[in-house]
């Protein structure tokens, strides 16, 4: 049962009904049962991994809290155990392909076995680690009720694609008293509808063109078009899913953290990654970047480099070490292949170059008297960021590095134009995509300028609001990509 099916909508309406009728103290049990029903339909018996991993976290958190002397050892062991599930199920092929050339020298071979990957394992593994580390750091108390912990780590709206939540922030929200709020109910459905528009009208439509273009190893203008389309597709797919899951969660009175903040208005790639997949960035910052930055090794290094005359070189050296791990893990988290590692390191290299070249760039700006506060300069910065991101998405979309290298050579053939209607989209499809992309852009521009679109919609008169609601519903029904001959594409980030 995917998020974008009628079955799922019926499921949440029924679950909502039961939820608000249930006694306040036990509403969370409805969430737990609903989550496991949803999880069972998606994954069957392999939900056992989520149950076991949560149980390990439950027991070890209690041990960490009670046992101050050995808590570091308990934390490390439990994190490694939980990570071993992920390593075995998702990364065993990647690990064996890296290690086997060395193992073969000693006549050993790590066998490769393809396992069914439990839905959401990449997401709830990070959440489990954050829970254990927070208990260790005393930022969170160990939960006494295993089933409450299980409710959080199997919570169905965030199961497939996140957002990655921290138990310490959500414990109160998840288990506190909830009352039905009609205004929030309406607003939540608008958000769900918005997500459906992004996913079914834009992402799945452009995905047809992108899939066909990449399958045929196209070149020239069509390749450039498909890279741009893919960037739009993945944004609409992922952020659309986030709109749907946030809206669904709001129906139950639980507000999930934002995972996107209009990333294509970013003026630098650092800003882009503070606005794209925000919860993953926050997790890597809190549990990888800061611990490594504040490690004895890095602090000692920092003390030594501060004596260097050039401050930006000192800064470069200080952040290069922890940031390498952040971007390596960012890439690896997305997938078990070298392509994803290179994807992560692409951003690492760009950021490090930015730090290193900053004084030179500042000198150029001063020399040519470039005004960096005007809108035209900001527009240039935004376009520059989009180009860098599109190139990264090009790598991300390729099947592997071989295809990336092969297709990159075709990028320079910009004057070769294939028939753009030979890749599965008609003139009407381009028109529909274009119109809805403009609508999404307008909504995001309004939000960027500080205008809360949903709030403003709620303030309007009944007739206007219902016109908008009906437009959303009919747009999805008429222009959504489904029906005979199509299967709604599964969410891209659900594959991680």
């Amino acid at each position, binding site marked *: 049962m995917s998020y974008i099916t009628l079955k799922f909508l019926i499921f949440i309406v029924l679950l909502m009904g039961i939820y608000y009728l249930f006694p306040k103290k036990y509403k969370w049990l409805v969430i737990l049962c609903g989550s496991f029903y949803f999880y069972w339909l998606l994954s069957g018996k392999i939900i056992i991994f989520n149950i076991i991993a949560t149980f390990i976290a439950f027991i070890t958190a209690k041990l960490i809290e009670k046992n101050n002397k050995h808590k570091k050892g308990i934390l490390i062991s439990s994190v490694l155990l939980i990570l071993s599930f992920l390593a075995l199920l998702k990364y065993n092929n990647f690990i064996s392909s890296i290690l086997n050339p060395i193992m073969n020298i000693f006549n050993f071979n790590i066998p490769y076995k393809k396992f069914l990957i439990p839905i959401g394992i990449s997401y709830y593994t990070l959440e489990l680690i954050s829970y254990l580390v927070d208990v260790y*750091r*005393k*930022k969170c108390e160990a939960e006494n009720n295993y089933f409450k912990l299980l409710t959080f780590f199997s919570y169905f709206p965030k199961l497939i694609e996140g957002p990655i939540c921290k138990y310490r922030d959500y414990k109160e929200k998840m288990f506190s008293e909830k009352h039905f709020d009609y205004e929030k109910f309406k607003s939540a459905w608008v958000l769900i509808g918005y997500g459906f528009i992004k996913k079914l009208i834009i992402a799945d439509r452009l995905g047809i063109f992108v899939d066909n273009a990449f399958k045929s190893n196209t070149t020239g203008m069509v390749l450039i078009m498909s890279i741009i389309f893919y960037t739009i597709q993945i944004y609409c797919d992922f952020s659309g899913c986030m709109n749907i899951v946030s809206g669904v969660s709001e129906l139950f009175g639980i507000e999930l953290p934002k995972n996107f903040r209009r990333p294509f208005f970013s003026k630098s790639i*650092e800003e882009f990654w*503070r606005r794209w997949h925000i919860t993953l960035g926050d997790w890597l*910052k*809190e549990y990888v*970047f*800061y*611990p490594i*930055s*504040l490690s004895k090794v890095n*602090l000692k290094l*920092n*003390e030594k480099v*501060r004596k260097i005359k050039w401050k930006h070189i000192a*800064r470069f050296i*200080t*952040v290069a070490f*922890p940031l390498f791990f952040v971007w390596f893990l960012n890439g690896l988290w997305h997938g078990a292949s070298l392509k994803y590692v290179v994807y992560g390191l692409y951003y690492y290299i760009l950021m490090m170059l930015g*730090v290193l070249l900053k004084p030179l760039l500042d000198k150029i700006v001063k020399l040519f008297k470039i005004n960096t506060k005007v809108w035209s300069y900001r527009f240039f910065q935004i376009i520059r960021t989009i180009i860098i991101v599109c190139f990264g998405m090009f790598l991300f979309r390729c099947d592997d590095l071989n295809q990336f290298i092969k297709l990159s050579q075709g990028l320079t053939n910009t004057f070769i134009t294939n028939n753009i209607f030979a890749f599965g989209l008609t003139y009407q499809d381009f028109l529909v995509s274009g119109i809805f992309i403009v609508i999404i852009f307008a909504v995001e521009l309004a939000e960027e300028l500080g205008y809360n679109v949903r709030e403003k919609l709620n303030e309007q008169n009944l007739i206007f609001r219902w016109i908008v609601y009906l437009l959303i519903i009919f747009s999805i029904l008429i222009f959504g990509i489904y029906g005979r001959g199509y299967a709604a594409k599964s969410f891209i980030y659900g594959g991680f």
Partner: protein
Amino acid sequence: MRKEIIDVLNEVKPGVDYENETSLITDEIITSFDVVMLISLLNTKFSIKITPMDLLPENFESIDSIENLINKLK
């Protein structure tokens, strides 16, 4: 102590009115890169040890909050 903290902040990122800023982290005036440099300098200057457990945004939002953190760790 306030003057010493401002000197450290200016070493990390000059050109900010630290006396009057109260949302250094929330408004992204100081980034996570800056925080790493800041912590290293504060540790050395004030002979304290800031650990990941102290890395809460509210501890670095303003001069006042940084001063409170230093006093807590001394």
